[in-house]
């Protein structure tokens, strides 16, 4: 094998070749382009090329009022739209100093956690599909549809100062039923995937992210927790109603693809616990604080971090005292997580690149924004 560090253009002509994975490729989760340099089947170098889904969200924010920008965060990371919506509302509330009613916080947490489960289903099952197992993917999506039904039922999109709609009886009962259903389903996934010898052989010791590498690249989310670092914004900088619930942050020490997959599956169970507690102790009261029709934050800036299904997201908002944000910057966890590929992929096989890419679970429009 050639030394990855010594590849130059001359060696590319002779022995090494480049393969374009993407922009259109079945397993790149949207339009992602990985420029892979290969020696036979062994990967020497991976260079992700991004920007194929760039839509100018940040520029758009400077042309919109705070309210008009409200639909956008959900379209950055479309897999965890509720969480992004929650986070953006929190950021603006922090900037304006709006106090949110407790009931609204609970509803936000419930929807966020439901969305986290939905997102982890895609994350974990897309990984399985990257390994070639298509059935888990369809099973996961089937369960995800149940979550989407619930979320559709209330359309409780966050508004500044609270949520739009209160939760209904059907939502309450449906969520209870869903929790029971999903707890039963974990056994199926355990049998289908976790105990599958090929799955374990393909995942173990593949794409190991050490703690040092994670620190270098600012990795967050389940990808980091697979490396044994229990960093989760929900615990470290508790926001919303999270400090009122007891839940664990699952971690695995190995740092390989299997660990990341296991962390996702374990987090789903924790999310179920949070939802259950929130439903048990749902406080009465209003669902929205008195907020003017157009919020006008004072001059200043604020950074609001929260945990999406992919890692620590941050909204950095600079206000000049008008109705229109001066600048909104989104700290995208996928952006940092994706860059790790360049560090951990060399030396693996081509098939492993797909596996690693699937296991760090990125959303492309969130990277490109």
């Amino acid at each position, binding site marked *: 094998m050639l030394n990855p560090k010594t590849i130059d253009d001359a060696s590319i002509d002779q022995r090494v070749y480049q393969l374009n994975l993407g922009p259109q490729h079945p397993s790149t989760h949207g*339009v992602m382009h990985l420029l892979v340099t290969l020696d036979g089947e062994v990967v020497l170098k991976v260079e992700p090329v991004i920007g*194929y*889904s760039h839509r*100018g969200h940040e520029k*758009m924010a400077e042309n919109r009022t705070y309210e008009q920008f409200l639909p956008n965060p959900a*379209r950055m990371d*479309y897999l965890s739209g509720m969480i992004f919506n929650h986070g953006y509302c929190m950021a603006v509330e922090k900037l304006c100093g709006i106090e949110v009613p407790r009931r609204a916080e609970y509803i936000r947490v419930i929807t966020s956690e439901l969305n986290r489960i939905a997102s982890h289903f895609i994350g974990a099952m897309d990984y399985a599909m990257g390994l070639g197992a298509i059935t888990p993917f*369809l099973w996961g999506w089937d369960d995800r549809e149940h979550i989407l039904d619930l979320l559709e039922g209330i359309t409780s999109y966050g508004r500044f100062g609270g949520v739009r709609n209160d939760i209904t009886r059907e939502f309450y009962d449906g969520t209870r039923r869903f929790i029971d259903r999903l707890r039963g389903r974990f056994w199926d996934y355990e049998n289908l995937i976790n105990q599958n010898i090929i799955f374990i052989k393909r995942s173990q010791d593949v794409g190991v992210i050490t703690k040092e590498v994670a620190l270098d690249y600012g990795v967050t989310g389940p990808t980091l927790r697979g490396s044994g670092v229990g960093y989760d914004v929900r615990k470290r900088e508790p926001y919303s109603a999270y400090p009122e619930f007891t839940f664990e942050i699952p971690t695995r020490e190995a740092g390989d693809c299997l660990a990341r997959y296991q962390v996702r599956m374990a987090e789903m169970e924790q999310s179920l616990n949070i939802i259950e507690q929130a439903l048990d102790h749902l406080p009465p009261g209003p669902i929205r604080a008195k907020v003017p029709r157009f919020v006008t934050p004072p001059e200043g800036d604020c950074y609001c971090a929260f945990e999406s299904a992919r890692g620590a997201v941050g909204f950095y908002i600079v206000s000049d005292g008008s109705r229109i944000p001066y600048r909104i910057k989104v700290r995208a966890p996928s952006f940092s997580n994706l860059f790790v590929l360049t560090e951990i992929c060399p030396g693996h096989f081509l098939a492993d690149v797909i596996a690693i890419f699937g296991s760090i679970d990125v959303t492309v429009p969130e990277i490109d924004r």
Partner: protein
Amino acid sequence: MEVKGNGPICIPSRDLSQEYVESPAVVGFAPVQDLLDLARVNSLWPLTFGIACCAIEMMAAGVARFDWDRFGIIPRGTPRQSDVMVVAGTIPHKLVSTIKTLYDQMPAPRYVIAMGNCAISGGPFSYDGQYAIVNGADKIIPVDVYIPGCPPRPEALLQGFIKIQTQITKGIIDANRRADKAARKHKK
């Protein structure tokens, strides 16, 4: 072609109507053509090419609840073996050449569905000062069916497929192309 606002002017480089390929197996014999149409209608294989949010809905159309395999729709990874291109999402400038290439790689007869507002007109991302996106898939490739929504539900996508099916069996798509061709001949 005029584009409103100060957004980038997106004029196709060539006259696209010249690139319409008459489907190679258009037969003069009506029953055979009908049979072919029937076959095309019932096995529309889309290209797995999701761009943004709409791609998730497109994938949802393929899984257990909606299951587009019922209608004989199975996604293919390579454009060479697919019939329909579902442009599911916003089209940034960086992606334009890719979409064009993919469309050219598909064998005739090929159909295009523009899924979601972004692929129809730029949708929510079209505003004065937008620098990144193309305002609609039809600026780049000919589109047969538009599905509005942000994003549209999977049912809407299935309806879009059914719309294409009716267009094929009624000969609308091919008739359009023939009319185009005739118009061009007339011009000359």
